[in-house]
């Protein structure tokens, strides 16, 4: 018996070590991609100049690195991290592999908020108002889910169905105003829905960082509860988890993260769905690791997509929302095909 227990313990620790190594690997890849993101661009500022500019005011190169490349890199990481964690939380509390900020209509809500400002207030004249309206409407759509869920005792099915219904509603409303718009407005709306990191400045980053990073410790504290939720509502309740309360707070926190991500960048939809699945296939369903790993892999995915979007067809920029799908979907398929058993 003792031998069996020791073997189990050894196996458990070995598995944990493997997971930690994988987490470390993602982190190292992320550092490498940060270096790449700071080193490549349209100007002649290369890796050495970029490195020097980080610590010393070298004039033009310093401005390019600190005012143009660094904000882009930081925003890409924040957005990827936020969407990855939010997707992981939505999938856990709704116990559904298809749950993500966008399948729940939060992205469509944000899009509708942006469309309203573009159509009625003149769009890019008021970038802060577009962001503000996108933020308000993404939270509105989250609270709509919560309101309906509250009335129906927060079952995961109710939340998902409400989310899907409002996704179609907000998409239809956006399409209606787009249909009524002028040529300029149609372009503006289309580009907003493609997603972009070009407008990321330090002020926007400050706001986004607060929205994305502040809820994260709360979610990490509830990681065990998310694990227990996977065993079923009844058993989680029996083990002391306040399931309804956890769902409400989980959706609220993840919605704030999502709103902080997309209000400045537009729709980058695929990350929240797939980043958690990619790491789940590798490290399993333990949310103590899954949450940070989803965040890191989301950050890596968006940052890689941004670097490729700016370089593969330079000086054209391929919209980030398109590029994340281009690189994420094949990788996701690859992992899916390699799996020999169900992972969800």
């Amino acid at each position, binding site marked *: 018996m003792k031998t069996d227990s020791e073997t189990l313990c050894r196996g458990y620790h070995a598995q944990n070590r493997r997971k930690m190594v994988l987490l470390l690997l993602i982190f190292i890849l992320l550092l490498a991609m940060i270096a790449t993101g700071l080193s490549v661009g349209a100007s002649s500022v290369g890796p050495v100049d970029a490195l020097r500019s980080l610590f010393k005011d070298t004039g033009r190169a310093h401005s390019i690195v600190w005012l*143009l490349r660094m904000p882009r890199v930081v925003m890409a990481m924040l957005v990827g991290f936020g969407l990855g964690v939010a997707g992981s939380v939505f999938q856990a509390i709704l116990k559904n592999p298809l749950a993500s900020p966008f399948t729940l209509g939060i992205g469509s809500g944000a899009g509708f908020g942006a469309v309203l400002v573009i159509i009625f207030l003149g769009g*890019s004249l008021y970038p802060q108002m577009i962001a503000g309206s996108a933020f308000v409407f993404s939270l509105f759509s989250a609270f709509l889910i919560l309101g309906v869920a509250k009335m129906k005792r927060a079952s995961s099915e109710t939340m998902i169905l409400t989310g899907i219904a409002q996704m179609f509603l907000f998409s239809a409303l956006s399409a209606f105003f787009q249909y009524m718009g002028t040529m300029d407005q149609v372009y503006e709306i289309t580009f907003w829905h493609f997603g972009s990191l070009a407008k990321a400045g330090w002020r926007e980053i400050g706001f986004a960082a607060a929205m994305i990073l502040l809820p994260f410790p709360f979610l990490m504290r509830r990681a065990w509860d998310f694990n227990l939720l996977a065993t079923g509502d009844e058993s989680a309740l029996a083990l002391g988890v306040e399931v309804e309360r956890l769902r409400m707070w989980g959706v609220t926190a993840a919605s704030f993260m999502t709103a902080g991500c997309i209000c400045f960048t537009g729709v980058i939809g695929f990350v929240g769905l797939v980043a958690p699945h990619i790491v789940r296939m590798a490290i399993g369903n333990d949310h103590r690791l899954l949450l940070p790993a989803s965040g890191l892999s989301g950050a890596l995915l968006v940052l890689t997509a941004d670097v490729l979007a*700016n370089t593969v067809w*330079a000086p054209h*920029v391929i919209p980030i929302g398109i590029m994340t799908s281009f690189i994420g979907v094949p990788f996701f398929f690859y992992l899916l095909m390699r799996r020999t058993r169900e992972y969800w």
Partner: protein
Amino acid sequence: MNAKVKSCAVAAGFAVFLSTFCFFQAPSWASGPQQIEAIDGLGRKIIVPAPVRKIVALNSDALEALRILNAQDRVVGVFSQIETDSAFWGDLVNKPKVGSWREPNSEIIAELAPDIVLAYAKTPSPEWEARMTSQGITVLRLDLYKAETLEREIRELGRVLGRTQEAERFCSWNSQWMNRIESEISGAPQRPWVYVESYSDYQAAAPTSGGHEMVVMAGGRNIAEDLAIPFARITPEWVVTRNPEVIIKAGSFSSGYGAADAVAPLNKRRDGIMNRPAWSLIKAVATGNVHVLDSSIWVGPRAVVGIAYMAKWLHPDLMSDIDPEALHKEYMETFQRLPYKGAYVSDPAPEASGK
């Protein structure tokens, strides 16, 4: 033959010649309901019922062209977005609305029973056109916004509507100013580099877009001249690297014709561009050569005004004798029969005005 008979013969010959000439020169429907052949913006031959008495205009360029030809009284239906600048369109705003310029309501148009519907060359879809044709309504597709085809299309529309004189009058005015601008800037020692940004931020107007064409006509070189798609998204860093001498942003920014403080949104937009991170490194920003231009004088029947402004920004020394605002005033009063009002370009940037 005596002199009297000779004069009679000459007069009779002249009368025969004149009637034959008139027969071929006058609109083919002048003698009664007939058909007239027109070439549309796609190069197709379109048979238009004549005379054209009822017109639906699906976009602002077509409606403005109809006013140039003094044919606005024949308009029976307009695009729904017309209300965004109701002061400019006057009574035309009260005409029945037929929906969006991209996908108008076929049923409303069918009920209005126009002789022709004026649409852009490629929008709405061919399927929509087939629906109109099945109702016996002719769709005449003319862009009326591209500087290079504007005069040909105005002449074609004038011929279809029996307004050839009005069309000629506008075309000769337009070509006179285009030639004058071309001649003024022909002595330029070099063509400055220009970054032309469309309505969305960091979206460059590249070849095949109207904006690129206008920069070239105004004597500039577009930094996006090598890009492959007409409205390409680019990075701020790329613009810094290309270091343009002039930046021009175009779009529907004005508060509209006759608005109280029409220049304020244009100036706000200009300030936004000048304050973009690291753009102080760009020559155009450092010298205050950043301008915002409203889409009403960008592409469209008034493109010559936009080109005059651009040429003045690119070649201020050579264009000192041309006043684009006076040109615009003349257009509004002569061809739109409206008093000149509103603001269409931003004020000179503070850095520039101080120099």
